[in-house]
């Protein structure tokens, strides 16, 4: 499983375009908000938590439809399913790889996006923590969605329709954590709730993805 995870990282380093596209999408969406709602600092700061989370989740969704699609097309998926690894372990390694190659670059870009949205500097740390947990949840849910839609005729369209509704709790708790930090309150309860979501996703998503891969 570690070998597969490391290969994902190596492949992403050889083709950084997908990670870069997700980061640019994230920053650009955050940059669009001041144009849409006006440059009033208070208004921007008020919508910043939700906008940050929504933009990050959408950006992390971009490379998900290729998560198993590329492996299926070049025959690697068959070999992975015959590698002795359980399909759930394959899915977990792919989800972890997706997070490191997409979620982590988004975290690196979070301060830029937070500045564009006029998020108070004292909330940036919590914003990074909330984004980290939420994108982890999305990578796990997304791996299940990508496995379920693998081979579907409109898989690229189906995937967000399947995954985004499931990611709503992560969006709510993440945005609430950032809002609490920006308002000088403790963000811990919301981060713990995100952690609970992550624990649930880490157990259930690979199992669902593995079952879908086995049935593929």
């Amino acid at each position, binding site marked *: 499983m570690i070998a597969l995870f490391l290969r994902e990282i190596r*492949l992403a380093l050889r083709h950084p375009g997908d990670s870069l596209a997700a980061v640019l999408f994230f920053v650009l969406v955050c940059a669009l908000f001041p144009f849409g709602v006006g440059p009033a600092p208070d208004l921007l700061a008020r919508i910043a938590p939700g906008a940050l989370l929504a933009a990050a989740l959408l950006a992390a969704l971009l490379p998900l439809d290729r998560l198993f699609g590329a492996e299926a*097309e070049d*025959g690697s998926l*068959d*070999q992975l399913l*015959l590698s002795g690894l359980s399909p759930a372990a394959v899915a977990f390694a792919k989800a972890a790889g997706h997070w490191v190659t997409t979620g982590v670059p988004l975290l690196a870009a979070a301060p830029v996006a937070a500045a564009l949205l006029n998020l108070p500097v004292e909330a940036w740390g919590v914003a990074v923590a909330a984004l980290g947990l939420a994108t982890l949840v999305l990578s796990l849910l997304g791996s299940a969605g990508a496995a379920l839609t693998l081979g579907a005729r409109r898989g690229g369209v189906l995937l967000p329709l399947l995954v985004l509704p499931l990611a709503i709790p992560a969006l709510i708790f993440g945005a609430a954590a950032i809002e609490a930090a920006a308002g000088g309150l403790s963000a811990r309860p919301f981060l713990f709730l995100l952690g609970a979501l992550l624990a649930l996703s880490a157990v259930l998503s690979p199992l669902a993805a593995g079952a879908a891969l086995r049935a593929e």
Partner: protein
Amino acid sequence: MSALENGPPLITPGRPGPSAPPLVSARNLALLRGERLVFAGLSFAVPEGGALLLTGANGAGKSSLLRCLAGLLPPLEGELLWRGEDALADRAAHALRIRYAGHAEALKPSLTVAENIAFWARLWGGDWRAALAAVALDTLADLPARVLSSGQRRRLALARLLLGEPLLWLLDEPTVGLDAASVARLGAMLAAHRAKGGAVIAATHLPLPLPGAEELAL
């Protein structure tokens, strides 16, 4: 469909005595793809050291049968046995005792030849350098797989057969794109594998150096 369907098991010359169950066998196997019955009532057996050549027109079900034998497609009905026991009862164990070389080469173009094969060696074990040498790709180990010719890509895919210790090789058109020297090298690999007690089931339209192989026409 073959004359073997519903018939007695086909036994090719092998090592164990006549009373030993064959390495792999199928009884009345049927497979459905989509809404189409690909084949039904298929029976065969391959002992250790044996070989079975699948022949038939395009779409006859050769590739589907190989995928079914690998455990990638569930049979609609019938039994797939490994030494007389249900082969698919433990899919993870079955996966490790077979090696499947399908149409797609399962290579990552941006990784080097060495990185491609070393990844699979980490999963299955075995000496990837020796595997590369066996298919005469050791001198190209540092090249990205994207610059390989189609024949070289096929050779790199076939090098995976030599990793780990799978007893049954399932080969789908293994000689496509190979030159005469590469076919001869594959022949040597097949012979060495069978001499060690391994078995081979191959689907091909091209000549394959598999002496003594039984033929199953689909």
